[in-house]
């Protein structure tokens, strides 16, 4: 893509080219600028619910994953205020759930953990909630550990829009929100879910896992052992862009 002065905006002072219809997030990532995000997976439609990718556009906060890029707009992302906000949001996600990194098989490949590393979190600041949440290990091949769920809704969206099964949904409000399963018993074993479903393959944390794969990858070779999340996400995004837009 050749930069076109009619199709650029400024991100933290850097001129960023974009294609018509691209979001601020997509244009930034294409240009190699990482914006922290958790509920968004660039392979699927954005949802703008985690607010981690919030940027300031012409003085007002917007979720960059759903904010259309517009020529000439002034965007701020890497500022002390936004870094502090992202740290706070991430700390709140940690204390609201039960995230035992040392015993979690997703550790090292977890986007929540890797994002916390990126943000330099050395503590959770807030009191731990220690919520009691139901574990669903009923299915032969899939486990749903609600302790680790950050309610990004990605499984709900993928199961509905891509797998077309509506296996997952969210119920309850506020701190009582939980992921529920579409089956008479409410258990995964009685639902239509299978390991082939994309919805069970893209959980950013260790809430939905395929059984029998725990600790397959040794420490030191896990996704974010090899490369911090900023570099890994940008590289993956740019490879995907090269495939779809040459």
């Amino acid at each position, binding site marked *: 893509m050749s930069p076109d002065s009619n199709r650029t905006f400024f991100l933290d002072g850097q001129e960023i080219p974009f294609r018509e219809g691209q979001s601020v997030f997509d244009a930034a990532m294409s240009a190699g600028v990482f914006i922290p995000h958790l509920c968004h997976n660039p392979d699927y439609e954005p949802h703008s619910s985690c607010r981690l990718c919030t940027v300031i556009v012409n003085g007002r906060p917007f979720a960059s994953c759903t904010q259309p890029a517009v020529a000439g707009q002034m965007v701020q992302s890497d500022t002390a205020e936004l870094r502090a906000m992202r740290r706070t949001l991430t700390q709140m996600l*940690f204390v609201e759930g*039960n*995230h*035992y*990194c*040392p*015993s*979690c098989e997703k*550790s*090292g490949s977890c986007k929540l*953990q890797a994002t*916390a*590393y*990126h943000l*330099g979190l*050395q*503590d*959770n*600041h807030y*009191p*731990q909630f*220690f919520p*009691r949440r139901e574990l669903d290990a009923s299915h032969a091949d899939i486990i749903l550990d609600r302790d680790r769920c950050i309610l990004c809704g990605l499984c709900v969206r993928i199961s509905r829009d891509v797998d077309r099964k509506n296996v997952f949904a969210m119920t309850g409000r506020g701190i009582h929100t939980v992921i529920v399963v579409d089956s008479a018993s409410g258990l995964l074993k009685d639902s239509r879910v299978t390991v082939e479903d994309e919805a069970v393959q893209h959980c950013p944390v260790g809430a939905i896992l395929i059984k029998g794969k725990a600790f397959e990858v040794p*420490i030191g070779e896990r996704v974010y052992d090899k490369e*911090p999340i900023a570099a890994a996400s940008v590289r993956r995004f740019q490879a995907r862009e090269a495939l779809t837009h040459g």
Partner: protein
Amino acid sequence: MASRVKVATCSLAGCFGCHMSFLDIDERLLDLLELIEFDRSPINDIKTIEGIVDFGFVEGGLCNAENVHLLKHFREHCRVLVSVGECAITGGIPSMRNHHTLKECLYETYIRGVGVENAHIPDDAELPLLLDKVYPLHAVVRVDHYLPGCPPSADAFWHFLTELIAGRDPNLPLQLLRYD
């Protein structure tokens, strides 16, 4: 030699893994001992801190009244208190018992447990009272700095300590920041 920095350490509801990892700084311990002097610590078996020390490193979370007592002793006697490791910072693995009531935990261990004979819940007055849940340190006292990891690597300990002694904020660089 300039006066050395006084350091106290203890392990509460943890596994001593953080202390072991600290010792993994190996020969750098000799350099460190030029800079610091141990006060109360399992390393020298001194049981209480007399006076005030510069840095207190506390490993492990809080699972019983004795843990709380010792943590408060550290807070009162340490100018700078550091929460070391996953258990101290979040409650860690011991806090997995928070999924269950204390009664359920005691029954599972001492009444219904596999191979239990003469089943009864221990009630010796010498035993410290268990807390309803396992808590991180900052739930009870003010904590000045956090050194994460399970355990923090020897390099993380070294970086953290040397930064602290140099009077800087002990922020871990990306490659030393780990929660597992």
